[in-house]
């Protein structure tokens, strides 16, 4: 079994990595909140989803976290009446992405919270190591 404190660092960093990947997906969704298709009646950007999975790491003897899958949301697209738009169909309706900005912002806050918690664990493990070194110092 490896040193639990260095295992802590590994686990927390896997958490940080997973959460930053999640933030990337959120930013992709937010950036493309109004991205329509370019041909008439074509599908717009569809919202991306991310799922995590815990993975047992034999070297650390602990469950790390990793991104399982980045999928797409199957929710129906919103339609807006905008006859002058290049992606409008014959009736003048444009399909808009199924991105809910409010939902993405809430997801972003949750990501931020989890990221901070991982960071806190890492800082504390570091403090514990420094305390051990401090015992040798004087």
């Amino acid at each position, binding site marked *: 079994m490896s040193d639990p404190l260095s295992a802590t660092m590994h686990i927390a960093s896997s*958490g940080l990595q997973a959460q930053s990947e*999640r933030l990337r997906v959120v930013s992709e969704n937010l950036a493309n909140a109004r991205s329509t298709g370019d041909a008439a009646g074509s599908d717009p950007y569809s919202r991306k989803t991310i799922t995590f*999975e815990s993975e047992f790491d034999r070297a650390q003897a602990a469950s790390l976290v990793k991104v399982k899958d980045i999928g797409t949301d199957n929710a129906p697209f919103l339609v807006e009446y905008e006859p002058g738009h290049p992606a409008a169909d014959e009736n003048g309706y444009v399909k808009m992405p199924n991105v809910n900005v409010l939902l993405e912002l809430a997801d972003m806050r949750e990501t931020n919270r989890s990221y901070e918690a991982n960071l*806190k664990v890492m800082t*504390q*493990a570091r403090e514990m190591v420094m305390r051990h070194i*401090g015992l040798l110092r004087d």
Partner: protein
Amino acid sequence: MEPVYLTKLISQSNGWLSTRQATIAENIANANTPGFKAKDVEPFVSVIDKTRLAMTATHGNHMGTNSDMPETSKVRKSDSWLVTHSGNSVSIEQELVKTGEVARAHSLNASVAKSFHRMYLASVK
């Protein structure tokens, strides 16, 4: 020489705290993993109560028998403050409270070790 085995006790306790910190890190890293159950280590009291004879690993091929290390045990679902719809039972607040406990106990251990060390040094001088 050392009637209370203080140094060993402190080192054991710090080892237990490190393991607990690793377990908390696991819980927090998996705070958004569907179906993940929060874990915790067994209490330190039950670790030091287990005074059993363990075989020593003297060869690289021996199976690891590290008896001092507490085993991580699964927490029952009811111990967690929160169970989300995805079956995840990690509450970040609860885990942060636990890290606070670990930090406090660890700092106490370090201070006690330091003051005992000072006492030894004073007798040497």
